[in-house]
């Protein structure tokens, strides 16, 4: 049953990811990106990472995709539909992607992975919320603070980027 679900969610994730790349309209791409994220969140549930699945749906599917759609509609791109791919571009990028995939795959297959063998029972530590709290407030306390500061800096940066400065000479 778990294997069947894995193949189903993997097919959804990969199929919609390919549709993100090839679909003609940017809005369609964003919608397929949303579906791909939902597939990934389902895979997180299969991996017993329930908190991360919920966070992925909230942060990515909720905030990020909504932001993408908002920007696509804000820019109102003239001729938003893409032109057909050039043959050389298509061949070159497919070749590069296959090469990258094979390279990483070869590395993964030949690496001496010291995890438990397939089928062995490993306790799912990611399932409990208590574990996250204990880790985030003891071992990873400093990274939590730094990430909070990073969010503040990002907010300031976005304000500076979006603001029109009237008196200033624009950088050409």
């Amino acid at each position: 049953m778990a294997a069947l679900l894995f193949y189903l969610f993997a097919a959804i994730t990969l199929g919609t990811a390919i549709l993100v790349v090839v679909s003609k309209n940017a809005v369609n791409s964003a919608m397929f990106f949303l579906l791909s994220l939902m597939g990934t969140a389902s895979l997180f549930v299969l991996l017993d990472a329930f908190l991360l699945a919920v966070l992925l749906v909230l942060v990515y599917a909720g905030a990020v995709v909504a932001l993408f759609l908002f920007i696509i509609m804000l820019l109102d791109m003239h001729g938003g539909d893409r032109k057909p791919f050039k043959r050389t571009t298509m061949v070159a990028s497919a070749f590069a992607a296959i090469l990258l995939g094979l390279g990483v795959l070869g590395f993964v297959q030949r690496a001496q992975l010291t995890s438990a063998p397939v089928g062995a029972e490993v306790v799912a530590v990611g399932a409990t919320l208590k574990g996250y709290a204990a880790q985030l407030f003891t071992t990873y306390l400093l990274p939590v603070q730094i990430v909070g500061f990073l969010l503040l800096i990002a907010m300031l940066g976005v304000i500076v980027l979006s603001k029109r400065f009237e008196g200033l000479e624009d950088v050409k």
Partner: protein
Amino acid sequence: MTIGLNDYLFLSVLLFAIGFLGVLLRKNTLVIYMCLELMLVASTLALVAFSRFNGTLDGNVFVFFILTVAAAEVAVGLAIIVALFRRRQTVQVDELNALKN
């Protein structure tokens, strides 16, 4: 038949390669950015799988931080794209050739 670490890593590699293909193939900056996010999600999938099959929580906590940083990154990146559009009236990368010649 049970699904092991290698199956998840295989899926993650495929997703990463598809994202990379999109970055190379597409001309629209917004779609390129979406494909970049796809690559990021693929790497988080690998981290969660490693964490699950090793019985540790560190990978999951790392993915927690990645999600936070990705949210900030998307906000800044889209602000840059909007600023670019204001100046050049286009987001197609083949029309952004100010550094050519």
